[in-house]
């Protein structure tokens, strides 16, 4: 089956059995190894990516459903190589990872949460970020999620100020 989609902003076409998990295609065909395999049962969240902006567990997502969609993996989370996504920056600032294996999935889930809820409470975080970390870095993650929310808001107000300055000078 021929399936075309956009991944991290680039158009891709793959020739593959439509039932193949999208995670297999991302890792083995497209060689993007940032997304991890943990359980293969949509239970741990290590394979979380975005499909059309929504968090999806790619181990349980048949590639045929990705046709004509926009996929983002951890490699495409930041807008450019020079600029980190606020979630990535906050993760570094709070020194979140231990072994690191689960972290891409958590970061993608966090980015999806912040898109919908820019200022989550502890309760929102507990309810929405339900991935599993064997190293139990949850405490640092929670701090990083709050930090990422603040960074996102700071970025947004900076860009609004910049837009206002630009429109005033024109």
């Amino acid at each position, binding site marked *: 089956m021929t399936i075309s989609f956009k991944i991290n902003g680039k158009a891709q076409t793959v020739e593959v059995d439509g039932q193949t*998990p999208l995670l297999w295609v991302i890792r083995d065909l497209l060689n993007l190894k940032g997304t991890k395999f943990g359980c293969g049962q949509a*239970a741990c969240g290590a394979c979380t990516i975005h499909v059309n902006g929504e968090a999806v567990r790619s181990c349980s997502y*048949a590639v045929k459903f990705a046709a004509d969609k926009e996929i983002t993996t951890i490699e495409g989370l930041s807008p450019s190589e020079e600029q980190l996504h606020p979630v990535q920056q906050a993760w570094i600032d709070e020194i979140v990872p231990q072994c690191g294996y689960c972290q891409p999935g958590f970061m993608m889930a966090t980015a999806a949460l912040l898109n919908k809820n820019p200022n989550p409470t502890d309760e929102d975080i507990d309810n929405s970020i339900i991935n599993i970390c064997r190293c139990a870095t949850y405490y640092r993650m929670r701090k990083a999620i709050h930090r990422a929310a603040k960074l996102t808001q700071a970025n947004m107000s900076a860009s609004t100020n910049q837009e206002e300055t630009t429109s005033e000078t024109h």
Partner: protein
Amino acid sequence: MKKSYLITPFIFLCIIGLSLAFPPTNQAEVATKKASISDTEVKPQQDKQASLAAFDEMMKVVMHKRCMNCHPSDDFPRQGEDSHLHYFGIQRGKDGHGLPAAKCGTCHQSENNDFSGVPGAPHWHLAPRSMGWQGLSKAEVGAALLDKSKNGDRSLEDIVKHITEDPLVLWVFNPGLNHEGTPREAPPISKEDYIKAVKKWAETGAHLPQ
């Protein structure tokens, strides 16, 4: 007392007078009238019995765990053959589709995934709170199905269409494999018999047990 003695013969005379003034036109008409009266007397009773029997049959599906697991009376879906709380603390959210980053669609797609063991059907989500059925009797679930204030303002016709055609409802007959590769339990009657029972229930007056 004296007054009633006078009134009773008066009423009797009136009835005789009226029957003489408006006699039945012929014997055949009398027979037809009798037949139609006896029809209307007997048919509703037969319909009611048929309707209640059909209701019992369709409720074997409607109240099966495959349906009930996503018709919770609280905000937490159930799962599995023992209807345990959905793992990972999954919640209803504002629209029955879960919470951001933990939506139904984060794991459930529009068809079963027999490799991961995650069930799926189009628009996988929880029934609204007003259609929470856990803890209700069969009759109470039936009443909720017919209650427009709870069922999304659906007429009986709409309800029949919804519960016999919606692919999410009909998923119960094809529930797929669980994470151990074991087939999930399906309801005890076939899809065809269920659809027949729903239609029969509606056609015969959509009666509910007392």
